[in-house]
């Protein structure tokens, strides 16, 4: 057995410095650090990390190549199952997936699989090889349309292109990437360096991406079949509709959905001086919610100069955000008001936010989700002074496609009804990602996209 060595720490930008910029927080491993960390892998006979990975990457396989110093071979191993390694190495919740299942984690610390994946992707991007021009994939002449260029759509399109399908992705916004572009901030996921590069790699497989096409408006699902000649459609349109709380004051000036705040900042680059799209964080900001989106919104508001507080109705243990994000947010100086729930947003005489009235909560019996449900403590209301309120309460699927497509069923939450394989209630129409599951993670959407690709391949092969 290899000698036990401690998990290799990863270098990060100083919290006091990064609280004022949008540069990436984490620097990633150097070659030496990566090889050292890779040497920790035990190469289990039945690697539980692979089972825990939604796209089943051969994790011990790529780590072995890193250990050997053959980073190109490592990339090739990952590429068999993932087309977005630099993205996933940065934003996957490894602690509950691959790393959460790592045997080393039982008694000590798991292998830093995410950071190794990121290293492999970054190394190969920064050191491109001559022969990286993709071998020509023979076309099978079958056309597939993919709706949405987020993680689900990209994964589905990439896999189908590798099988020879003629794939076109339709994206509603002006830049492809979905949540990778509009949702996740630059300091966690650099746009031009990482997202654009990995999408370009998918383009090199022959995938076409048409931006500015809103399926349900510009074209319909039916017209994709009837007029545009597609033989199958994959819907990966995500969950883009923001939720609000239905409390008084939500339409005051200075109240944003996290989607709006992050879209202005990330997609429209409002953080840059002189950007045509404005943003306003104010001197003080309150973010409502406890997920990754809440952390992203809070850390963005902080970087724009606001003294920022996160308000969450349960305790820190129940925060749905990744530990790493909570830890980073705290390091940067974000304040947390736990067991606290807003009841009203307070406005001044001109209709601008001046504060938020909250009530203290306590945890009662576990609810359907197994988490103890928060109950308000009567008479415990208190006010927090703030100029900005950002609602990060989750999102629902956009109803645009369903409303304009006959025979496409949804459930009570507005999510598309689909089989485990991704088949919807309409023949030839498949779906996956947040549009089916409701808001989840990048990697789960990618997993669903890959399944959709398999289902579409089976469907069109049997026709």
């Amino acid at each position: 057995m290899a000698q036990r060595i401690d998990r290799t720490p990863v270098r990060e930008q100083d919290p006091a410095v990064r609280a004022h910029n949008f540069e990436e927080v984490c620097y990633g491993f150097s070659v030496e650090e990566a090889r050292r960390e890779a040497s920790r892998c035990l190469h289990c006979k039945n690697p539980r990390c692979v089972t825990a990975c939604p796209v089943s990457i051969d994790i011990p396989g790529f780590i072995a190549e890193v250990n050997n110093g053959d980073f190109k071979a490592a990339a090739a191993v990952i590429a068999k199952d993932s087309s977005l390694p630099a993205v996933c190495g940065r934003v996957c919740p490894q602690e509950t997936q691959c790393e959460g299942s790592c045997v080393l984690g039982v008694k000590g610390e798991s292998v830093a699989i995410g950071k190794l994946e990121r290293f492999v992707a970054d190394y190969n991007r920064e050191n491109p090889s001559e022969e990286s021009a993709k071998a020509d994939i023979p076309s099978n002449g079958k056309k597939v349309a993919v709706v949405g260029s987020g993680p689900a759509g990209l994964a589905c399109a990439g896999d189908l292109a590798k099988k020879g399908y003629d794939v076109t992705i339709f994206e509603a916004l002006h830049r492809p990437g979905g949540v990778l572009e509009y949702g996740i901030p630059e300091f966690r996921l650099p746009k031009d360096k990482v997202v654009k590069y990995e999408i370009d790699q998918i383009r090199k497989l022959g995938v076409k991406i048409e931006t500015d096409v809103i399926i349900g408006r510009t074209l319909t699902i039916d017209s994709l079949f009837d007029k545009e000649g597609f033989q199958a459609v994959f819907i990966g349109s995500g969950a883009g509709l923001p939720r609000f709380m239905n409390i008084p004051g939500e339409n005051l000036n200075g109240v944003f959905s996290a989607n709006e705040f992050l879209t202005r900042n990330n997609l429209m680059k409002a953080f840059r001086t002189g950007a045509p799209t404005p943003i306003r964080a104010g001197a003080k900001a309150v973010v409502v919610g406890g997920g990754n989106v809440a952390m992203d919104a809070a850390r963005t508001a902080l970087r724009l100069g606001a003294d920022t507080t996160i308000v969450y109705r349960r305790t820190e243990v129940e925060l749905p955000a990744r530990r790493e994000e909570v830890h980073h947010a705290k390091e940067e100086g974000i304040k947390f008001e736990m067991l606290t729930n807003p009841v009203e947003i307070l406005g001044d005489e001109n209709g601008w936010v001046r504060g938020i009235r909250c009530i203290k909560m306590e945890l009662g019996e576990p609810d359907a989700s197994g988490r103890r449900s928060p109950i308000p403590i009567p008479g415990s209301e208190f006010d927090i002074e703030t100029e900005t309120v950002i609602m990060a309460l989750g999102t629902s699927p956009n109803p645009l496609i369903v409303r304009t497509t006959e025979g496409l069923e949804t459930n009570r939450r507005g999510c598309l009804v689909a089989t485990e394989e991704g088949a919807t209630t309409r023949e030839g129409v498949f779906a996956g990602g947040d549009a089916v599951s409701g808001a989840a993670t990048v990697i789960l959407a990618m997993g669903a996209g890959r399944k959709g690709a398999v289902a579409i391949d089976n469907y069109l092969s049997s026709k």
Partner: protein
Amino acid sequence: MFKILSKTMLTPNICAMDVKAPRVAAAAKPGQFLIVRTGEDGERIPLTISDYDNEKGSVTIVTQGIGASTSAILDLEVGDCFQDVAGPLGNPSDFMAMSKEELAGERYVFLAGGVGTAPVYPQAKWLHENGIPVDVIIGARNKDLLIYADKMKEVCDNLYLCTDDGSFGFHGLVTAQLEAVCAERGYTHMVAIGPMIMMKFATLTAKKLGLKATVSLNTLMVDGTGMCGACRVSIGGKMKFACVDGPEFNGYEVDFDEAMRRQRQYLPQEKEALERYKSQKAK
């Protein structure tokens, strides 16, 4: 990239452009809007669709130079391209979903304010072509700001022109003109498109006259597809998104004061951006 096929200055600060966007042109219906961007970092600007030609594959947009981004649109010339044209967005006008029977007996009057006159055109045209009586009242501050008068004449039964300063046509607001002719013309339904304040008073006048009232809300927007909620408005006390639930709403249910306040959220930044744009242009 979306090429500009023609450009006509309607006033020194308002221009009409035909833009090549075949898919948008094929799908567009009266009442809908689109979003354009100029340049790689451009703001997403919602503009109403004032006409569409499926054969030429073009849409007509009318822009008034107000802030930096709309001024940048006015500076584009024939042959230049928009970085992006996305649409059509929003729901088509309510009457598009009504049956012939439902429409029979309706007499529409459109109140068009300033640049809001442009989106009235395809709506009046559709009604006119379908044999529904339709009148249009166009209002502007002065004679030089009146647009679309000749075009509109072709697609309505009666056209009334008003100016605030009396430099042309009826001396007064569109609401006063409406009151003056409503009884005689026997209107049943008022549709107002223009500045928020004008739509507020148009609705109040419609109420006084016992007309149904429809307004088309030009709120702030980012994506225009229901994603951001910047466009949210209170309709009958409920939160709605102008981009996906509208842009048309029953005027009686709109909280106009809130809508006007929300429109002003970025006023200081917009002023700054305009100054920056002007000084860059001067260089």
